[in-house]
């Protein structure tokens, strides 16, 4: 009796709501922490990044003008989807990070809880970061937090799920569209989350996930004129160079941090938020 052959999966990019191979036709081998073959993964190109930015730009206004309640429902749906695929995510985290099953499960659980945390933020950011300003005159003056727009994220290289969730969900929660370059060597948990986003009512283009070589993808994100913000968490050695490239279009830049992806601080939420202030006259 012949043994059943398993069906092996090709991991594709998520661009504009579609699962695509890289336009370059390239893929690369991802190995687990022990150095064994784990998966073939699409190797995104500069052109893929540009396509993703275009899709993100087109999607961002709709994502922001949807109600905050609706955005929260979509993010919570993502948590529900991830919860249903915890086992699979844990296997990928264990393979990618070389941690034991229990640690991988715990890490995935924290990551999912983090999605829930951000789901709760969508309709509270304005109440925490915004407010009325008592100007000295007959004016009603108030400030609202609004999204920066399109945010490029270099996901952490080490924390394949928790770190990916934290860096991606924060800009999404406040109404940005995101183009994320996954960890170069540990891309599959992020790609899986990208897959789940397709069944969580995310409008196409709001979350674009690209795997590949960070040194190829990052400079395009950093220098792209239509990217408004850049999270350099996974930038590695090129960090400062990328930060300098972002200056050309005055991007908001978040520098790599200490790797705390469960902080109770709103720091990451505030990274890609602008303050919009409205003055309105008061008078009979």
């Amino acid at each position, binding site marked *: 009796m012949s043994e059943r052959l398993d069906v092996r999966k090709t991991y594709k990019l998520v661009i504009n709501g579609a699962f695509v191979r890289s336009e370059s036709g390239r893929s690369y081998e991802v190995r687990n922490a022990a150095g064994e073959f784990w998966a073939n993964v699409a190797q995104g190109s500069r052109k893929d990044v540009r396509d993703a930015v275009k899709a993100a730009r087109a999607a961002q206004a709709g994502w922001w003008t949807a109600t*905050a*309640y609706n955005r*929260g*429902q979509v993010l*919570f749906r993502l948590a529900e989807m991830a919860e249903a695929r915890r086992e699979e995510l844990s296997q990928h985290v264990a393979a990618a990070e070389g941690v034991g099953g229990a640690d991988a499960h715990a890490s995935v659980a924290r990551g999912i*809880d983090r999605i*829930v*945390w951000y*789901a*709760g*933020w*969508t*309709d*509270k950011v304005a*109440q*925490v970061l915004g407010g009325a300003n008592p100007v000295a005159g*007959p004016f*009603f003056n108030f400030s609202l937090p609004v999204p920066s727009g399109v945010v490029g994220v270099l996901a952490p290289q080490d924390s394949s799920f928790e770190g990916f969730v934290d860096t991606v969900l924060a800009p999404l929660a406040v109404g940005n569209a995101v183009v994320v370059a996954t960890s170069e060597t540990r891309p599959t948990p992020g790609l899986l989350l990208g897959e789940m986003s397709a069944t969580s009512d995310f409008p196409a283009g709001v979350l674009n996930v690209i795997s590949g070589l960070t040194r190829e993808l990052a400079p395009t994100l950093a220098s792209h004129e239509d990217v408004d913000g850049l999270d350099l968490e996974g930038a590695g050695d090129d960090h400062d160079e990328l930060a300098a490239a972002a200056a050309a279009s005055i991007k908001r830049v978040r520098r790599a941090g200490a790797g705390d992806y469960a902080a*109770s601080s*709103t720091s990451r939420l505030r990274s890609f938020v602008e303050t919009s202030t409205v003055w*309105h*006259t*008061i*008078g*009979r």
Partner: protein
Amino acid sequence: MTENHLATSHLGAFDYDPAPESASIARLRDAYGLFIDGDFTDAASHASFASVNPATGADLANVAQANSPDVDRAVAAARHAYDTVWSKTTGAQRAKYLFRIARLIQERSRELAVVETLDNGKPIRESRDIDVPLAAAHFFYYAGWADKLEHAGYGANPRPVGVAGQIIPWNFPLLMAAWKLAPALAAGNTCVLKPAETTPLSALILAEILQQAELPAGVVNILTGDGATGAALVEHPGVDKIAFTGSTEVGRLIQRRVAGSAKRLTLELGGKGANIVFDDAPIDEMIEGIIDGIFFNQGHVCCAGSRLLVQETIADEVLRRLVRRVEQLRVGDPLDKNTDVGAINSAAQLAKITELVAAGEAEGATRYSSSCELPSAGYWFAPTVFANVSSSHRIAREEIFGPVLSVLTFRTPDEAVAKANDTNYGLACGVWSEKGSRTLWVAERLRAGVIWANTYNRFDPTSPFGGVRESGFGREGGRHGLEAYLDV
């Protein structure tokens, strides 16, 4: 009135066929116990009473009558749950329970809408599209706060108050339960909730939902009963906080009862909301807004726009169009999806409305009531508009809590503000004008907790709601709604 009759016969050609929702969706049981410590149990006295469908007068189900011993049990269960479980449950865990409850309300929304309409008499369109979705949204919103309390502006580590006693009215039974429970649980309190005597059923479905969500026993206890049950809860020494929504008369009694104790108190009471219409307002939207402001939920709304203040220059036209619009309202079977105005909630409320309307006529105001045919069984009142009302009339001063609008006029913005504030209440007002600067000028001067501009009766979990003056104190909804349940 000739024109009205013409309008009616013309519309008759376009009459709707009945489109009733099925009452069987409610799946009501014959009898419900008290929900104490996670289980449904009999009242100690075994006493019970029937909850009645106000649209037919028929009994819907029997519910237990809680008395003092039951209040003791419920408060003890809440205290025990607070000490042993809930105060040790992390914010993130509390959030997950609340998200579960929100999801379950969404999943059982059709059933809840039908139960609410059967028990309350409100149109299914409202219970389906407003009460139930808003209740779910409230749990969603406060779920998100449970693990973010340090960001709410009340300090680094805000603590809960303890055991909350919560007494809610009959006009939005499920929604008021959500307004009370969601922030209390998010902040880490345990609860004893008393639904209104005439509308206990949706709270009991909610108790089933709490069981489905596996909320730890005793965290929420639900006691059906009458005013005496509420009084026992208010006076119970084991309760740290009382939250009451209802009449100003009862609110005053409660405030007196808790005076001298360390109990915290929030009150959301009556209102006599002024809906102020300037002559530059967009008239079609404004007429719909006035109609919605007073006839939404049969006018059983504490923030109803029950006093219309119209600028004199457009008063005749506004009145003419209002009377015509009132004639078009569809009054009848609350389960019919086309119904605009349903049943009055109880015989007592109908008697109160009838008495105040008679006083309006006796005091010389001009009455226009819809000529709609009212069902013979149950409690009904035809939508009514009073013109030529003066500020001293009872129908301009007292809360009618029914489908009755009093129309007054004004000439200048100053006069509008003065008339709007000429009340002991201060819950909500509306301002209709295309001129934003004037709307804000008026809003600054209105003594009311909520002011709607070019809209009315809007509710959202993120938006604080509550009154000033004799409409009560404390806010429900939004970041502000957490304060009542935090020891800050």
